């Protein structure tokens, strides 16, 4: 059924919270996503020209670069100019929207939103590969597999998060488990008291492209404000003092040796240094 389930208060809304302040753009989440999903629920995630070459995917578009199906993509943006500018690493995947048009446009019922946890999935046995859902997604979350002839997308690692063969600590999406800096959080955004909901409230988590009206479940935490002043360490005054000492220590007309070499103790130190350096 491509009609959306009725949303009620207290409905579970599983999703991700991504911290743009912390993300270092290492692509580890994308790589682990590919690693897990290439053998999981949506396997295979086909690649073309993975070892160079010019295979055609049969979509009438030819280019020789390596490309394939990935559910997680890491962009890097510059925002603002000059001293106000920021470099922001930006992971992008399915946001498991509350009103996803990718589901309602599906003519076959292959796309659906789960009532119990809000995860948006594709039933590969029903998909006819018309690609309309990918046109309806503002976020570029759906990627077509030309080899399988069906649409594929992030499953929120449904084959991990409910997988009782894994230890409980590992029952999180692959991207979350692998993030080396802890920039990705997984949890129930329908529960206002959950850790992820609290994080969103504290940090001002926001929706991507809210004007589209898709009401994404995943939230993004903005980069924290830049620090423009330093703490009172006394560093500037100390630097000034050192500069003054250095100016006094330079021998008149002498260009060789270090500043301290002009003194007797300095000469001794220089001799020791020369001996030890042999």
């Amino acid at each position, binding site marked *: 059924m491509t*009609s959306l389930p009725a949303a009620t208060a207290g409905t579970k809304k599983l999703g991700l919270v991504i911290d*743009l302040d912390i993300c270092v753009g290492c692509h580890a989440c994308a790589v682990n996503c590919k690693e897990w999903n290439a053998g999981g629920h949506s396997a295979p995630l086909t690649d073309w020209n993975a070892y160079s070459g010019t295979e055609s995917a049969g979509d009438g578009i030819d280019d020789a670069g390596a490309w394939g199906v990935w559910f997680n*993509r890491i962009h890097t943006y510059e925002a603002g100019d000059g001293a106000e500018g920021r470099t922001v690493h930006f992971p992008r995947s399915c946001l498991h929207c509350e009103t996803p048009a990718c589901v309602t446009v599906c003519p076959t019922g292959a796309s659906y939103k789960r009532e119990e946890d809000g995860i948006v999935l594709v039933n590969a046995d029903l998909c006819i590969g018309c690609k309309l859902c990918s046109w309806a997604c503002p976020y*570029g979350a759906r990627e077509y597999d030309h080899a399988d002839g069906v649409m594929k997308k992030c499953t929120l690692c449904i084959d991990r998060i409910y997988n009782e063969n894994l230890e409980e600590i590992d029952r999180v999406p692959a991207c979350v488990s692998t993030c080396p800096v802890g920039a990705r959080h997984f949890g129930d955004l329908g529960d206002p008291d959950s850790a992820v909901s609290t994080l969103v409230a504290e940090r001002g988590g926001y929706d991507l492209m809210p004007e589209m009206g898709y009401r994404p479940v995943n939230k993004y935490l903005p980069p924290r404000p830049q620090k423009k002043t330093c703490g009172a360490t006394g560093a500037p005054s100390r630097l000034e003092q050192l500069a003054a000492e250095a100016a006094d220590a330079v021998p008149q007309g002498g260009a060789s040796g270090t500043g301290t070499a002009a003194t007797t103790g300095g000469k001794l130190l220089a001799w020791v240094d020369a001996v030890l350096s042999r």
Partner: protein
Amino acid sequence: MHPAASVIFFTTASGAGYGLLFLLGLAGAGGLVPAGLGLGLTGLALALGLITAGLLASTFHLGHPERAWRAMSQWRSSWLSREGLAAVVTYLPAGLFAIGWVCLGRTDGVWAVLGLLAALGAVVTVACTGMIYASLATIRQWRHPLTVPVYLAIALYTGGLWMALLTAVFGGEAGVFLWLTVAAGIAVAALKLAYWRSVDTGAPAATAGTATGLGGLGRVRLLEAPTTSRNYVMREMGYRIARKHARKLRVIAGGLGIGLALALLLAAAAVGTASVAVPMLLLAALAGSAGAVVERWLFFAEATHVVTTYYGAEAA
């Protein structure tokens, strides 16, 4: 948006087919044409042939054409599903109407009702095709109040061009259909000019600032794309056409599809003798159809998808 040949052929061929079916249904029911074998067989074979060829072509771009029948199941939410269902349902009255006309030589009574139902089905199907595009919030050039009217007008116009030719050959109120087609052509030109003026000056649906949520920090631009080569999203949604080329193609679509075709129609009306008029009307139908293909190619090529704002576009 990537202009896929199969979808362009589907929407233009089936559009013309439904336009012709609409006119044949009304003309048969209204007694504007004789219920003769020539017009019935040629006209309905052409109409249903164009529709069927178009529908078959549309399945060529599917990953699993053998599952296409499933596309009729989700009519509650999906315009694509509604289109598929409307297309199949329309075959029923259209097929029975064709049997009455071709086998029994009847287009009156119950056969007339079937003709009217086929005409209604044709309108509904083309409107659903337009709504597939008009319902997508992600593409501002498609989610436009003129998208559905343009689809309907072009279907009527291209169907009318074939109807004008058929009635000139097989008899009937040829003048009515010729002038109706001229009026439809003028309507297409007016709608399309208004549409192009609107989309050329329209506000973007989203910007890189709202896509990333970083707009508050200042101008947002892509520093590094996720991959060095183009992925599915960029191949499918990231098609870009140079403004210069788009202008030229708009002139070609209008000059060929409307200018040349209408000039040939008017010339055919002026000469009157069938031996001269019929080749002119055939050329008009071909020119109009070619113009419709160019227009439909541009409809895709000029459409900008909001996902491109993640891949370097400032706005879409």
